């Protein structure tokens, strides 16, 4: 059973997605329970796999027992073991969280939501585990198509935002496919490890350069790196709450992972940093992304929209870190995928609770929120502290690795941008604390019969995932040293 874990991690949610569609026609209520059950099982398998990778080393799984360059192979090494664990845990938390929210926002579309939800996570898990370049494209499109459908379950402005996302997402995926085509011409292979060995044996040609460029630009479009970020804020703002809680932490992070995987396992370090020598240009782009994201976030009065711009800034962190080209930079970028996934989730869950109760996420409606929803705001604050980078939350440690990487590489603009972004985040979140804590409740009238500030929390099924995520942020922060020594360093040692 454990030998089959890599396949089961993908197969269980895939079959569950089909099953939920069928069951949902007759018993819509069952679909939530089935989804949660699916992700409990998936999470158990991913954690077992993670443990196995730490103890024994990378796991290779060949589908249908066809040997590697001919068949499709799943490779789980130290980095993606960590990421699949993150994806399945995030999916589980959002699945639990979505129970009341979906009922309220989507009504009779519950089974559709949950089958698309499980299918989306299937795609993301597959992207992370696959060792085959074309298989990655197919799974990329599986997750992209389901995400368009999930986003379009909402109403009003979501349609046109989703349409733009569809166009940009397709361009990104098609560029990736073109890049894979160039690799296929050059090497005749689609298996990532096989491509890497063939490319290394040859001298680098323009075809390899074209492949690298197309794949990188495709991924940058998918992850919304600064000049290509236009689609992201509208899509996540107008999406249903549970959808944005699932997409915001996972979609962009998985694209960052694909970029890292391509940079390290297909093309090699020597080619990217010594032959091409573009690192300064890309780090400059990352700096722009961080600054632009921070400035644009500053101009928003809607909390959810502000967060979407912070995602744009966070993408800059990871791209910049990966392109610094030193151990600390790679450590920071890999660690930040996990850290940013959980902190984005934490903040979106908190905002979701607020929207569920108040119906709005504008800054003006945050008055007196701390007294009204204390538990939600505890979660929100821990997420905010992680975003700012206050120890012992994990946001501090990823920023620390990125800063020391920038210092070693002498990338001063990146160093300054990281500090400025922390400062901007601090101002943004303290503005919310000021409004929420010190400003009075709007409907506060001298009514002596009732207590002045009535507590009115979101349901328990929403609060528990939120507080769990907040706890995870601190937990990951405390165990940073272990994560880095047992998981991220062994991954970096494979190519540096």
């Amino acid at each position, binding site marked *: 059973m454990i030998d089959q874990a890599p396949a089961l991690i993908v197969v269980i949610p895939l079959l569950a997605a089909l099953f939920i569609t069928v069951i949902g026609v007759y018993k819509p209520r069952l679909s939530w329970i089935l989804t949660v059950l699916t992700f409990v099982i998936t999470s158990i398998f991913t954690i077992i796999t993670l443990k196995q990778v730490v103890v024994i080393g990378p796991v290779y799984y060949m589908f249908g027992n066809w040997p590697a360059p001919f068949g499709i192979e799943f490779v789980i090494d130290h980095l993606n073991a960590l990421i699949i664990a993150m994806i399945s845990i995030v999916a589980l938390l959002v699945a639990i969280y979505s129970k009341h929210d979906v009922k309220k926002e989507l009504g009779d579309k519950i089974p559709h939501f949950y089958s698309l939800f499980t299918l989306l996570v299937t795609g993301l898990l597959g992207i992370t585990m696959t060792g085959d370049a074309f298989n990655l494209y197919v799974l990329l499109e599986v997750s992209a*198509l389901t995400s368009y459908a999930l986003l379009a379950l909402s*109403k009003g*402005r979501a349609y*046109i935002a*989703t*349409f733009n996302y*569809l166009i940009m997402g397709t361009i990104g995926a*098609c560029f990736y496919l073109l890049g894979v085509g160039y690799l296929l011409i050059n090497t005749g292979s689609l298996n990532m490890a096989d491509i890497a060995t063939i490319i290394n044996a040859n001298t680098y040609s323009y075809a390899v350069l074209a492949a690298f460029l197309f794949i990188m630009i495709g991924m940058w479009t998918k992850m919304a790196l600064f000049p290509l970020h236009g689609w992201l804020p509208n899509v996540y703002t107008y999406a249903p709450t549970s959808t944005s809680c699932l997409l915001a932490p996972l979609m962009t992070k998985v694209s960052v992972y694909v970029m890292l995987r391509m940079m390290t396992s297909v093309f090699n370090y020597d080619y990217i940093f010594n032959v091409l020598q573009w690192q300064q240009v890309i780090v400059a782009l990352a700096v722009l992304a961080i600054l632009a994201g921070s400035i644009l976030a500053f101009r928003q009065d809607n909390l959810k929209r502000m967060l979407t711009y912070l995602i744009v800034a966070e993408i800059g962190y990871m791209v910049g870190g990966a392109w610094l080209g030193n151990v600390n930079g790679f450590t920071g970028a890999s660690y930040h995928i996990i850290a940013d996934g959980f902190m984005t989730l934490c903040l979106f869950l908190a905002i979701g609770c607020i929207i569920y109760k108040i119906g709005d996420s504008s800054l003006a409606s945050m008055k007196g929120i701390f007294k009204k929803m204390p538990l939600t705001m505890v979660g929100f604050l821990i997420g905010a502290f992680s975003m700012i980078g206050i120890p012992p939350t994990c946001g501090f440690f990823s920023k620390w690795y990125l800063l020391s990487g920038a210092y070693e590489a002498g990338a001063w603009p990146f160093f300054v941008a990281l500090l400025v972004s922390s400062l901007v985040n601090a101002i943004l979140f303290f503005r919310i604390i000021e409004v929420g804590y010190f400003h009075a409740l709007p409907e506060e009238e001298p009514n002596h019969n009732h207590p002045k500030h009535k507590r009115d929390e979101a349901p328990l099924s929403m609060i528990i995932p939120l507080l769990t995520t907040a706890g995870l942020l601190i937990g990951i922060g405390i165990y940073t040293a272990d994560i880095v020594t047992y998981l991220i360093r062994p991954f970096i040692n494979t190519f540096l």
Partner: protein
Amino acid sequence: MDYILNHFNYIIVVIIMMLGLWGMLSLSNLVKKLISMAIFQTGIILFYISMGAKKGSSIPIIKQAYDDHHHPIHQTINHIDYANPLTQILMLTAIVVGVATLGLGLALTQRVYSEHKSLNEDEILESLS
């Protein structure tokens, strides 16, 4: 001239893809955008197919020849005689993905139209602001 003739298929592919990409990014009608998307994807499909094409080659199935007594004749197999089927198989998947994207895009366009009563992106953005 030789260069153009030798790389004729690739030049056509580049032209088709660039037309599609231009249309996706610059046209303002949503349906035209989707048509451009289909053209772009077709360009990529042609790119893959033409890289696997080989003149005078056959499908990679070995045809067993028999002598007069119905005994199999031992043949030498030349890989030059066979075309690589991989690219065509990959494109079958890509076509399916393309159809799914196009269908979803058209369904979304329908929703956009019923919401905004227009298919022109500029008009929609104007009505929103």
